[in-house]
């Protein structure tokens, strides 16, 4: 089957972000989504450190130490963008003003619980940042992650074994194998990659799946 690579996953997510959406892209893999947003769509990127209308990375040599994204990488501000303080920035997130946030994950449960902040290892230094705020605040929470861990365990699970970030907060999962909605009636497979059949996807996933009536048989990035 044509498993998507990480850039293809980002490209696939980008397709689902409509013009005019207010969007926060989490640190790590989700940041790549910005590279695939169509230039002809005006989309408003929010960064929790106080930016709305965040633009691409600056040209080399033009970096500004006071113009960074949440991952502390240099960025720019588009014309029409704005700066604000942390109180206002998190009001945007927690007050339901963002349309979409895209987050990475260790695990997502059948009920939409998200685990992405802590491995639970006893000696790990915990760090949460804005993950829990994003998880509960945006109108739609998209998760992008590999379907299987490096050990071959599915990251979609009946119940999270890692400490959770938020309860029942995930709306849609994008993996390297499929696009899956979390609904009141369970997990609904919207798309699968070319060469993967539903039975095989279900075999890999320890949670009951339903194939959407209108499901695409191919994830096209």
């Amino acid at each position, binding site marked *: 089957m044509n498993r998507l690579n990480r850039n293809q996953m980002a490209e696939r997510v980008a397709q689902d972000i409509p013009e*005019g959406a207010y969007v926060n892209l989490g640190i790590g893999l989700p940041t790549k989504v910005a590279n695939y947003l169509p230039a002809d769509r*005006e989309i408003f990127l929010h960064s929790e450190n106080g930016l709305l*209308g965040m633009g691409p990375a600056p040209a080399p040599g033009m970096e500004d130490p006071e113009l960074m994204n949440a991952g502390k990488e240099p960025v720019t501000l588009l014309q029409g963008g704005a700066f604000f303080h942390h109180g206002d920035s998190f*009001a945007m997130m927690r007050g339901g003003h963002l349309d979409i946030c895209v987050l990475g994950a260790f695990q997502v449960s059948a009920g939409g619980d998200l685990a992405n902040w802590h491995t639970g290892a006893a000696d790990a230094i915990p760090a949460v940042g804005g993950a829990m705020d994003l998880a509960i605040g945006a109108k739609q929470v998209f998760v992008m992650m590999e379907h299987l861990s490096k050990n071959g365990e599915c990251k979609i699970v009946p119940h999270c074994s890692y400490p959770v970030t938020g309860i029942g907060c995930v709306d849609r999962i994008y993996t390297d194998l499929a696009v899956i909605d979390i609904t009141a009636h369970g997990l609904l497979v919207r798309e699968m990659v070319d060469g993967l059949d539903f039975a095989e996807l279900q075999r890999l996933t320890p949670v009951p799946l339903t194939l959407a009536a209108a499901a695409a048989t191919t994830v096209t990035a």
Partner: protein
Amino acid sequence: MIDKTVSSLEEAVAGIFDGATVMIGGFGIAGQPAELIDALIAHGARDLTIVNNNAGNGEIGLAALLKARRVKKIICSFPRQADSQVFDALYHAGEIELELVPQGNLAARIQAAGAGLGAIYTPTGYGTLLAEGKETREIDGKHYVLEYPIRADFALIKAFRGDRWGNLVYRKAARNFGPIMAAAATVTIAQVGEVVPLGVLDPESIVTPGIFVQRVVAVPGLAQARVA
């Protein structure tokens, strides 16, 4: 291309439904979106719940909306004024419901709605008539009253300048409730003295970022024009 500007006041207030909760900016007439209120009167929605600091002055703006019998309830801090005769008459006739809220609690409850808080313990009103029947709590030796967010379906506000993304700046004391109401309503409609091209507003000085604003309509006016 995203363009939140609309070309008429009629279009600006489209969709305001009977029974809606509508926040209206302004402290007295400063910051009161008088032309949007007139458009709302023409639009015809009724049984509205209005959130404003006052309950109308004279016979214009909010007072005119009250006079047209479109308001079933008003949530405000200071209804009684020298020229609040329209409200006064409706109130004495039992034809309007009043929820009186201390001004700071009004602001804080509107902010709580915009920020996604479930409730807040506020110091104001403890031990007074306005906290009767409300839950209270002593925290670190001080007394607080539990108050809930005030959300709205629509907010009508007045700003000085806006752009097509909905970014707003205000003018002097007309700012008052505008920024906090913008964040607390599902649909925020701003009348602005001038729509400027994207990028004209300084990103350091934008008071209301466009994420909080859904519609912008230009209403050139005297107060705005006076500014350098």
